[in-house]
């Protein structure tokens, strides 16, 4: 029975693992994982575990009520643009950040700041969020 790559990604997150693919041809990372190297189209790809750590470059906030009912209990939330240590860019919920203009302006001036993964539950699905580990 074939295993769904998408299902595998979320099951790995549940185990606190952040998994992508690395290409044996061009060496680049496809994250989150797909069936092919998104950079060169090679199928010579292998499972690759990322740290999930990186830098938060910018953080703004979501709308409320949220379009997706999965986030009814979480929204509105801070949502940021992150550069992972491995050079991959990803956007996600940033926990622990207020969404009032004063807080966001404060983080606007402080960014970039370091973040680590914060795997949170969204209606039964483990998802990749981030939390800031330093304020300066």
């Amino acid at each position, binding site marked *: 029975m074939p295993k769904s790559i998408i299902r595998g990604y979320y099951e790995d997150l549940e185990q606190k693992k952040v998994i992508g693919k690395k290409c044996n041809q061009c060496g680049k990372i496809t994250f989150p994982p797909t069936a092919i190297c998104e950079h060169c189209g090679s199928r010579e790809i292998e499972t690759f575990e990322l740290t999930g750590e990186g830098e938060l470059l910018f*953080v703004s*906030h979501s*709308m409320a*009520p949220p379009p997706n009912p999965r986030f009814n209990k979480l929204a509105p939330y801070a*949502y940021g643009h992150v550069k992972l240590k491995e050079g991959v860019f990803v*956007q*996600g*919920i940033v926990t622990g950040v207020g969404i009032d*203009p004063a807080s966001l302006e404060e983080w*606007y001036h402080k960014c970039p700041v370091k973040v680590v993964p914060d795997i949170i539950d969204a209606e039964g699905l483990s998802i990749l969020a981030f939390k800031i580990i330093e304020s300066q």
Partner: protein
Amino acid sequence: MKNKLKEPVYILGVGCTRFGNLLETPEIKGLTLQEMAAEAVKEALDDSGTDPSEIDAIFVGNVTMHTSTLPATYSQIAKWTGMQFKAGVHFDGACSTTNIGITLGAMGIASGVYRKVLVVGLESTLSQPKKLSPFDRETIPTEEMWLWTDYCVNQAYSVPQGYDIFPSYNGIIAQAYCKKYGISIEEFEKGMFELCRTRRLHGSMNKRAINQETLEDEAKRFGFDDPYAFWKSNYNPFLAWPSRLRSAVSAADGASAIVISSEDGIQDAPNLPIEVKGWGVTISDLPWYEEDPTYMHYDTLSFDKAYDMSGITAADIDYLHVHDCSHISSICTAELSGYLPKGEGLKYAEAGRLRFDGDRPMSTHGGRHAFGHAWAASAGADTYEAVKQMRGICGERQIPNVPKISVVHTHGYAMVSTVMVYGRR
């Protein structure tokens, strides 16, 4: 990629309904999507002097099937537009749909298969059929419309993990723009206010716009003598800090239609044909940007392709519309296109240079905020405005130096970056 048209292709006629709300807006109130499409097509056929029997193929675009409930749109629209027994297809390029349709039709014509093609876009973003009624409709909540629209975005990973268009396409880009060019948040606010003021001025001069009230008049209606105080009030909240509500899209219902033709089909045209000189189309999934959120690489590729196919440079552009669901993103795109200098877009807005009577006119129909946005119909509405400007018949919002070259850019969600180059003969 050869990136050349074998034969010239022309826009012969255009049609567009009033953009508004099928439940409220007088010109379209009570109509169905079939009837809106028929109205836009009638105008395009009349404008082009084309009898339905002359059309060889019909390309019909619609994005949100949940609100149209018309998945096989080609046949469902054919009887309403005189297109029975033509070649036809339903297609979807999200918010680039109608202009993608022009590229498909143009390729059909330039290859020698078709002589005349009809492109149609129709959309309702504000209501859906009430129960199973064929004519009654009911309002849908904004968040439900976005849930369905976000089906266009990465459903494997981004949407289930909290993706939201407003920070991704507004707030984060705005912050990056300010940092990149050393613009304070207060300067950003002023620039966005002025940009909105320009778009709303254009909308106030366009009887087909969803919002025909100037920002100044709206401020007065809310009790503000100073429109900038209104801008910064709670009536204009942050959608995604530091971007506010009135720097973003106004969802609408509407339809647009375009008749395109080979050169031998334009001889008896009652109105000036406009040449489709070239285009560029590039797709990308998220992330839309990397280190620099003000730079979307696929837009560079689309503009490069379009300039190459049409043989123009940015210096040749007389009129520009770029996708402006997010006003700050539109400034980034206009700068990327070469029409505005890097980091100067908001200053140009403040100086009035982006107005219809400025030296860098943009989005003279009012753009996505004032004209409104009916997903599959909007790119056609942008083309409609470009054609009318190039014919010199836009009335009080007419660009004084009638444009010879117009460029229309759209971001189909998410993303189909589409750049069209139109030329006056």
